[in-house]
């Protein structure tokens, strides 16, 4: 006879959780190496494209009159956006006491840090003379001239570097108890043991340590929360502070933040679906987790759709021929296909998530998440390229002549760069939080343990 889930002794559950999650850190097999080889090859091509661009100048891109921000800035905004769900899930949902976050927050935090590392490359790639990058830093030149602090590009430097600092600290701090568990499981003397011993700061799991850990975690969560809003708001002001029609819009900050969370959650789903299969973590990343992430998608997709509709309405209501022209051009001009891709992928496809059946179907959510990733990339492309190629001066109108193979190569390289870190990350760091999952073991795991039958007498006694 199967045991009731509540009768399963805690130590048995905890031991199983340790075993299941730490098993993901086993030495990688041929599949991992094959993927890594592909990723490195693409990355090498991306690096080649970058070197080619540095050698030959930005003329190798498709920049044309009035369109000097294009795929690179699109990629920058895309990757910063991807980085958002991590902190939302780990910090904001933590403060809101959403229990479902526990199994998925680690992987989204890892994704956050790697995505910011990817995003940070693009302002540099976008520079014609990349070796002059230090002009972005708030540091005076030899004539004691500082960069323009009223420039949103400088705000970006601050916002992104702050976000990187806090999100990586937050990731690392949450890892300490888990790394200690990994240390205890690792073979003494192995490189893993030495690494985990150094990174876990001698964590023993005493009451005092937990007390400090919990306090610190709450404070960091409270610090990270405003960052979720501020980073992408600042990115949005890169555009909204300009006066280009289609950019100068007050709704940009909250709209970008919602869009960032939207794309971030979609990317988490895209990554977690293969991961749970690969690592056999189906009990941890269960249907409830997907259901809840899909609800976040419904919410953020609704906000993004609200912003789209408001912008179209206001362009019409404003009576301004420039605003009207830009927004009409979005759905009927040279880039109509990009505009409609954005609207369909971000507003229409996610409507499926209103159905509980779809939310709880992992295959369906995987497909929808891919659509959203594509749609959100195109959203940034539409905002940037389409607005720039249709601004105030009809004489300057003209489509952007790209993306060229260099831009495609660097874009593909950025995905490879991100995946390289991700592949390394999931083999070194536990991709599901060991310590938080123990606080609320997932239903599916309890059911499985219960089905496995009576615990042995020694376990029951405790």
């Amino acid at each position: 006879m199967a045991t009731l889930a509540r009768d399963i002794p805690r130590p048995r559950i905890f031991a199983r959780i340790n075993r299941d999650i730490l098993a993901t850190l086993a030495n990688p097999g041929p599949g991992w190496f094959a993927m890594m080889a592909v990723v490195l090859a693409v990355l090498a091509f991306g690096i080649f494209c970058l070197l080619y661009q540095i050698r030959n100048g930005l003329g190798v891109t498709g920049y044309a009159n009035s369109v000097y921000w294009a795929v690179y800035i699109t990629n920058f905004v895309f990757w910063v956006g991807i980085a958002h769900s991590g902190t939302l899930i780990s910090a904001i949902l933590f403060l809101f006491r959403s229990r479902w976050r526990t199994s998925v927050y680690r992987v989204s935090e890892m994704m956050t840090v790697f995505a910011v590392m990817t995003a940070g490359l693009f302002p540099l790639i976008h520079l014609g003379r990349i070796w002059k990058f230090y002009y972005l830093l708030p540091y005076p030149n030899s004539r004691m001239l500082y960069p323009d602090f009223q420039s949103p590009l400088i705000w970006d430097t601050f916002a992104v570097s702050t976000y990187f600092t806090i999100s990586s600290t937050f990731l690392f701090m949450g890892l300490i108890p888990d790394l200690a568990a990994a240390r205890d499981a690792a073979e003494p003397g192995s490189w893993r043991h030495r690494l985990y011993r150094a990174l876990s700061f001698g964590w023993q799991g005493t009451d005092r340590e937990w007390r400090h850990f919990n306090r610190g975690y709450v404070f960091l969560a409270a610090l990270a929360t405003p960052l979720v809003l501020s980073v992408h708001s600042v990115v949005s002001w890169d555009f909204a502070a300009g006066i280009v029609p289609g950019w100068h819009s007050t709704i940009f900050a909250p709209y970008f933040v919602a869009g960032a969370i939207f794309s971030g959650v979609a990317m988490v789903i895209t990554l977690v679906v293969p991961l749970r299969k690969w690592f056999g973590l189906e009990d941890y990343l269960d249907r409830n987790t997907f259901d809840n992430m899909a609800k976040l998608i419904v919410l953020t997709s609704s906000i993004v759709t609200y912003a789209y509709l408001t912008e179209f309405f206001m362009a019409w209501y404003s009576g301004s021929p420039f605003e009207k022209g830009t927004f009409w051009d979005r759905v009927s001009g040279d880039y109509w296909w990009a505009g409609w891709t954005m609207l369909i992928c971000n507003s229409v496809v996610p409507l499926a998530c209103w159905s509980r059946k779809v939310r709880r179907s992992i295959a369906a959510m995987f497909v929808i998440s891919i659509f959203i990733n594509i749609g959100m990339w195109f959203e940034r492309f539409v905002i940037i390229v389409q607005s720039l190629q249709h601004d105030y001066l009809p004489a300057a109108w003209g489509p952007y002549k790209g993306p060229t193979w260099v831009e495609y190569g660097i874009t593909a390289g950025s995905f490879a760069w991100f995946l390289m870190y991700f592949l390394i990350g999931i083999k070194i760091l536990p991709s599901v939080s060991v310590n938080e999952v123990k606080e609320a073991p997932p239903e599916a795991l309890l059911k499985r343990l219960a089905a496995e039958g009576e615990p042995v007498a020694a376990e029951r006694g405790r």
Partner: protein
Amino acid sequence: MAAHTLPAGSAVQPLTPEEARAEILAAGERQPPGWLLPLFGMLAIVGFGWFAVRVASGDDPHPWRIYLQNLMLFTGIAQGAVMYTVAMTVAKAKWGRPVRRLAESFVLFLPVAFLLSLPLYGVMDQLWPWVEHPVEAKQAYLNPGFFTIRGVVGMLLLFGLSLCFVYHSLRPEVGRLRDSVQGRRRDVYDRLSAGWRGDVEEAERSDARRTLLAPILALVFAVTYSLLAWDYLMSLDPHWYSTLFGAWIFMSAFLSGIAATGILVAWVPRWLGLERYWTPSHRHDQGKMTFAFATFWAYLTWSQFIVIWYGKLAEDWPYLLHRGQHYPAVVIAMLLLVWFIPWVGLMGIAPKRNPVTLSLFSGILLLGLWVKLWLLIVPSVSPETRSMLGLDELLVTLGFAGLFALTTTLFLRTFPVLDTRDAHLIVPYRPIQPHP
């Protein structure tokens, strides 16, 4: 987290759910102080009387502006509080269940608000400048007929759905309790539970309806309240537009609903002698929500400001410039009252848990939102720079406040102030685990 200590005395004695239900129901029978209802009535009569005299005795449109301002404020509170319960339903927030009924208690103002909005359509020419001087490019949207249809249909839809949502919160309860009450309450309970199908089925049915309605209501709220914001407030300056305006106004309404609920959470338990059902933790959570959404309001305000300030375009910059140059004190007062003072005041743990400070800062916040609406309305339409401290402002506001308090008291005296189905969640009193 501060140590949780049990309050001294009888408040910690465990009760059975039946005893708890009886106690909550009996609290509704307690007579409020004899002067309270007459006071609210007097406020309403004096306020609306003054308004009637002012309107009848001259062609100064100013009283109508203050009327619009207060209509938007109190509608915002009532609707925002319903949305607060909608958000809790969508998020399956367990902590908020004892707070829910208090947030629902403003809902009776919604039908009143609908009635109060009707006279505005009769004096549109006094309030909205585009009626007398139509803006050609916007005539398809800004014309009196379409404006009226949008307002009436939008309000009917939004308020109707809100009432339906609250109805499904009340129905399973009043049906079960209808034999325990007499007199007026019995009539109301019988009417609300007509066609009763039995306790369990009704509860399941109503919960299913609420789960279904909540996201729909959220969408309807965002859309209709944006339209209301653009029509009633933004079009006062028909040349100005801002894409964030609708969202800013509906989030302000949401914030005002949370803040007003905070005042009830602080005091209703004490007034009704039901302190054992609300713990300091509930006030703490309530305070956190107020703190968070006040900050979010500041974020939206800033997002709207920075873009306009940075662009300095002829289309939108004058709107801010005019307010900054002619009403600097009002602008500063708004920022201090809505955000800065509540933000500083509610930052600590103790002020959130203390009923006096929680309600004080919530009240300050509401006052700030009142100032905000004044700032959106009066400078747009008043040719001369006016002071915010006038008799119209004082008396019309008091009139609305009196009416609002009357509807709220009526609700609180009719329905159990705590969903008695939730009584088992908190009885016997037990400290909730400390949590961020």
